[in-house]
């Protein structure tokens, strides 16, 4: 974490809870940078998270109101807090398993209702905290502790899912695209209504080492090589787009 953002952390927090090579520390940095650039007061913010590694990004680290909830239910808790006190600026930060598998129903319904929440989904494509089981976001063929011969089910396209549910702002970036990501977080915080950002965040400990990425940097390289902007993607064939991750803004607040 950059020193200039230390004021956003609780004084009691002395170290990161994340593994070496984890993308969540970078994401933590970028969220605080967006808040810093927007000059949003931490007194107005409420951070809600579920269960899993990504849920530890705000709790206990962020020096604001933080609500660390049940597995999958962060958006439901956030809905109650926001609806009762609309003055709170509510950001949900949690993982892909939490928000889109066990909590998938709350995600699409909050998007459908257009509740004024910012939801940041740190997608590491695996259940990290529980030991690397396959997720609803794991790529086809991915090796996990419950798919030793490779994942046979297609992953969710989270952005399409949330767009389909009617969210006015939906974006996807990787932690290897920090400037775009800060821009997207700022946009989501200033867009009224339900906003969703899928952030690709590598998990070397549980995903990378099982899937032939020899070091954490290899996973970052993979993300840098495979992420293509949606504008670039328009000029690529179906064959060329295989294994690519399309990034960008898929709906920009117009709804």
């Amino acid at each position, binding site marked *: 974490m950059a020193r200039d953002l230390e004021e956003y952390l609780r004084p009691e927090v002395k170290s990161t809870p994340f593994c070496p090579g984890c993308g969540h520390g970078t994401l933590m940095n970028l969220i605080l940078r967006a808040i810093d650039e927007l000059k949003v007061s*931490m007194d107005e913010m409420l951070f809600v998270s579920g269960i899993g590694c990504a849920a530890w990004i705000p709790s206990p680290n962020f020096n604001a*109101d933080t609500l660390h909830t049940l597995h*999958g*239910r962060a958006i*439901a808790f956030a809905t109650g*807090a*926001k*609806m009762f006190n609309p*003055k709170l600026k509510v950001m949900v930060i949690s993982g892909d398993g939490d928000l889109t598998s066990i909590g998938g129903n709350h995600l699409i319904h909050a998007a459908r209702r257009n509740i004024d929440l910012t939801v940041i989904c740190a997608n590491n494509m695996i259940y990290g905290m529980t030991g690397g089981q396959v997720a609803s976001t794991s790529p086809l063929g991915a090796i996990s502790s419950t798919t030793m011969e490779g994942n046979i089910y297609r992953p969710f396209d989270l952005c399409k899912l949330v767009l389909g549910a009617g969210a006015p702002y939906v974006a996807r970036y990787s932690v290897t695209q920090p400037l775009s990501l800060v821009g997207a977080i700022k946009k989501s915080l200033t867009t009224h209504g339900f906003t969703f950002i899928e952030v690709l965040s590598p998990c070397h400990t549980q995903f990378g080492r099982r899937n032939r990425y020899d070091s954490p940097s290899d996973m970052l390289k993979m993300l840098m090589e495979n992420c293509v902007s949606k504008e670039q993607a328009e000029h690529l064939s179906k064959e060329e787009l295989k294994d690519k991750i399309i990034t960008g803004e898929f709906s920009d607040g117009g709804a």
Partner: protein
Amino acid sequence: MKFEEIASTLPPRTYYFSGNEAVAEGAIAANCRYYAGYPITPSSEIMERISIRFKDVNGVFMQMEDELASICSVIGAVWAGAKAMTATSGPGFSLMQEGIGYAALTETPLVIVNIQRAGPGTGQATRVASGDLMQAKWGSHGDYHIIALSPWSVQEMYDQTIEAFNLAEQYRVPVFIMGDEATGHLRERIEVKAKVKVFNRIKKLGAPPFGTDQVDGIPPMPAFGEGEKLLVTGSTHNEFGFRKTDDPLVHSKLVNRINNKILNNQERIIKTESYHLDDAEVIVVSYGFTARSSLYAMDELRKEGKKVGLLRLKTIWPFADRIIHQIGGKAKKIFVPEMNRGQIIGEIMKYAACEVIPYNQTDGEIIHPHQIIRELRYLLNNM
């Protein structure tokens, strides 16, 4: 004490309400301003009335996508400063159990109404039972204590809902109203008084929100947005909310306190009603709708000079162990009619020295007075 008398939102007079409507009105009277729920028979009328009446009082009503979301959004609203409630039945109550455990550990005051129907499974959605009493106490994993009330009339659906909010705030605990289909759909005349006594949440800015010096203390409770930079978690936490999930001392201190704060105050919490206990040879211990039939049966037998008494449990949890111990030392027999396979009788047998006789019915029908009269006659003739 932080009790305050406020004016009733409903003009004071008599009303002709169903039990479910009375619950909604009791909640509004107690300053409940957030409600989240999901449709389920036989409790839906509570949500329907709230959805209309909250417009008059600036309440926030959310019909959520399921019962998991309902209880969780209620907890979120409570931490944002609301007095909040949800109501459900049968399978919906099962779905809420995880959230109930979270509320117990985070000491979140809220009210959960269970209009009980016949289970297990989907069971008989439109029929009466009181099969969820043990679930109210033991439904979520781990060791915790809650408060559960058992209304027997439409008036009590109203009064106990107000009481439930006050108990929830005083003890920072989930409080259950264990109604049933019969009481929920019963229509009776009720009296709405001009003043309502409500307990206001105790706030002490800067004080630890999850710990006190006493082993059974109840910490003050701030809300989000008050600048407290609150740290709330359903994992084991110290007095300021920091996760301490591998610290045996922090865990035992926390779990013991959330249990002791209820158990050590149980004499203040528990309410019972006694009829002819002094000379009774057979005492009926009853609760909820069945207590109406029990009272009728007792009155009929008293007319014949039979020494029958009635103890009505208005509070189910914490359990009225001391009074059961007392009457169990005096009466010859205790008779326990229940619309389940025998739930509260187990608690009674733990504390009563005398013979305890069950009467169980699980056919989705109420237990009628004549059934109790018949059973009591048999008991009295064979003593």
